[in-house]
């Protein structure tokens, strides 16, 4: 890994940790657990597009570990992983085939947000041991779609304003 890349990824990691913390400070006034903006997803999506999926996975894992040890606990880490890893996988595939599927980053973000919430809900079903948690599915699908669309669009807006950004999306 070149120094250039290490620097860039370090910056991205710091940014994604801060995004997670900012989000923790301003919860959405909806009152449904699991509904959140997913600001850190902007960074993951950005790294997926500009550096590559493996680099994004690295940032994702490190971010979850850092955030978990600093502000969370074991459970919050498990939830973060069960949402983050599937979402990363989904966004990686979506971005890989985005030309064939005619997807912009908004759609890629939507896929990521929705899969993230499905993953977290699945984890919740097992951890809480209550199948009834599944009743959250409709609202979580919708919120994942909306927040994922927002973060994807933001990510696209950022990349468009960067030099050589337009070619990468």
């Amino acid at each position, binding site marked *: 890994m070149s120094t250039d890349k290490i620097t860039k990824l370090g910056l991205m990691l710091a940014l994604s940790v801060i995004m997670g913390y900012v989000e923790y400070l301003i919860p959405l006034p909806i009152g449904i657990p699991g509904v959140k903006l997913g600001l850190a997803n902007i960074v993951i999506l950005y790294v997926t597009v500009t550096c590559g999926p493996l680099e994004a996975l690295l940032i994702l894992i490190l971010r979850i570990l850092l955030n978990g040890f600093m502000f969370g606990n074991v459970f919050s880490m498990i*939830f973060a992983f069960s949402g983050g890893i599937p979402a990363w996988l989904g966004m990686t595939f979506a971005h890989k085939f985005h030309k064939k599927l005619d997807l*912009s980053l908004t759609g890629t973000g939507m896929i990521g947000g929705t899969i993230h919430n499905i993953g977290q809900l699945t984890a919740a079903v097992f951890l809480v041991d209550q199948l009834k948690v599944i009743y959250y599915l409709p609202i979580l699908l919708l919120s994942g779609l909306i927040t994922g669309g927002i973060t994807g669009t933001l990510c696209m807006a950022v990349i468009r304003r960067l030099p050589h950004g337009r070619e990468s999306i």
Partner: protein
Amino acid sequence: MLKKGDIFVAVIVISSCILSSLMFMKDAGDKVIISAEGREVAVCPLDKDEVITVTGRNGLECRVEIRDGRVSVVEADCPDKLCVHQKSVSKKGETIVCLPAEIVISIDSEDEGGFDAVTR
């Protein structure tokens, strides 16, 4: 701007959202709880056809019928007969109330839901 694929994703997710919420809405209860003057007087399974006569306040009587998984009041002594005119109920949380007799018929299900953990 949105591309064709984005709209496709949105349509799929929204339709599965609607589908799943429709699925969960049919949350049928499985027991009928009848209370009179604040006291629980009878708990009956919803799947067994039965007619129960309950005596409430001032000796007013209600005849509660359970048939085909639905509960309704078929006859009542109360002056306004509002309870008789109410639609039959079958889903968890639905109720029929007879105010003059202080009789409340509500549907509940056996397995208590209730979330006991919150995640952020």
